[in-house]
């Protein structure tokens, strides 16, 4: 027989044997573990951001934990899931439990509205964590956002952008899923997770107790005048003596927002009707 034909036979038979081997392996090997299959199905109903805010290394690990014990949904809730009602309901239906009282989610806010004058030029490693270690950044205010976007880098949904003009981080309220990755990333601790129903927050973190010099550091810094406390008749705003910054309750402090000389009490977008002149609030 010629070599060509033998070569063809050899190749086909090796291919056939390999095929049979795969077939046999498929039959012999145990089927996929049932709990793993369940974990896989739960994972499909999770946000899949692998943010780690729940304390588990990624969504699959969380799904495995949920597959083992449903209680974990209460003990260490998935914050992203909580902000998405449809997804919560879908997971609840799959698991056969009621998750509707899991509570609303959170959103991240940046306690800085920028505008602190630059007093230096930094050209080192382009990260906030590195920049604050070298001469505390470029800006005069030691509480200001450094603006190299460490928070934007870790954000799994790209909700954070850097305002190029003021060089500060801006969180998009709608896109934010409240995972809290940015809170850990900010070396200045300027980012905070607040419940979605919070009506307002302060766009400044200048705490130097009773230091009116805040006025000089930045045109939108809190000057600790306490007009917000005085103008809130029903005690919506209280003064936090420790931080020397106002503290808001869960009701909208309309007067305080208007009276603030620096206009840094910022309404969250959770109350769109208040911002919309065509749909004034009912009460």
């Amino acid at each position: 027989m010629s070599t060509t034909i033998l070569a063809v036979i050899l190749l086909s038979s090796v291919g056939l044997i390999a095929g049979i081997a795969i077939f046999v392996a498929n039959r012999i090997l145990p089927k996929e573990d049932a709990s793993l299959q369940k974990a896989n199905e739960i994972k499909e109903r999770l946000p899949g951001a692998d943010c780690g805010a729940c304390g588990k290394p990624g969504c699959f690990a969380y799904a495995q934990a949920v597959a083992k014990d449903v209680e974990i949904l209460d003990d260490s809730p998935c914050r992203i899931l909580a902000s998405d009602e449809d997804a919560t309901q879908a997971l609840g239906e799959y698991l056969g439990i009621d998750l509707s009282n899991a509570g609303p989610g959170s959103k991240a806010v940046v306690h800085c509205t920028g505008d602190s004058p630059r007093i230096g030029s930094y050209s080192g490693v382009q990260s906030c964590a590195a920049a604050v270690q070298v001469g505390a950044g470029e800006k005069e205010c030691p509480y200001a956002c450094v603006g190299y976007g460490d928070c934007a880098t870790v954000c799994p949904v790209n909700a954070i952008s850097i305002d190029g003009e003021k060089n500060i981080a801006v969180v998009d309220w709608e896109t934010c899923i409240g995972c809290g990755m940015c809170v850990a990333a900010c070396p200045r601790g300027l980012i905070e997770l607040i419940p979605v129903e919070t009506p307002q927050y302060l766009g400044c973190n200048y705490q130097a107790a009773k230091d009116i010099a805040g006025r000089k550091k930045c045109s939108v810094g809190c000057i600790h005048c306490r007009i917000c406390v005085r103008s809130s008749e029903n005690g919506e705003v209280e003064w936090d003596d420790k931080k020397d910054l106002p503290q808001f309750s869960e009701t909208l402090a309309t007067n305080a927002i208007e009276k603030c000389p620096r206009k840094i009490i910022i309404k969250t977008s959770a109350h769109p009707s208040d911002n919309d002149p065509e749909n004034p609030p009912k009460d």
Partner: protein
Amino acid sequence: MSELIAIFFSMALVNNMVLVKFLGLCPFFGVSKKTSSAFSMGIAVMLVMLVASAVTWPLFHLLLVPYGFEFMRTVIFILVIASLVQIIEMSIKRTNMTLYNALGIYLPLITTNCAVLGITFINIDQNYGFAASIAAALGAGVGFTLVLLIMSGIRERLDLADTPKVFKGAPIAFLIAGLLGLAFLAFGGMVG
């Protein structure tokens, strides 16, 4: 034994797959952006190299050589390695989900990677025995993982550095690869 150790180090450093033999360059650039994925890739390549060497050596010496079919080694090896990796992937998926998640997409990706095919040919061209082939495959896998880890570590730091715009991304990676290759040339002549 000392010969096996010499072969191991020769394949890992002196004749490094990526930087000296220029094999497996696609994963070297494609999967070296993050250290974690570079490590998974390295482990997957090492595993497949070991299995491929262990299977192709007897196949070549017991089947192809006696019947004079040495010229068919390329196509036969590709076929055998590809189906083997299929079976390995299947068994890992069914038995150890954690390992499967760690190796992820990389296992099927490298079924017939040139570095994997390369090590089986080197084993035959160098007339290595079975044990020597395994040592060579292990060395090549370790060398590959080492280079991938070095490269990913450098690239992770480069991402933060203020690189000139024209060099950002791939160009600086190629430059780094060249410098790494120069560094590895220094191993030349160390082991037989």
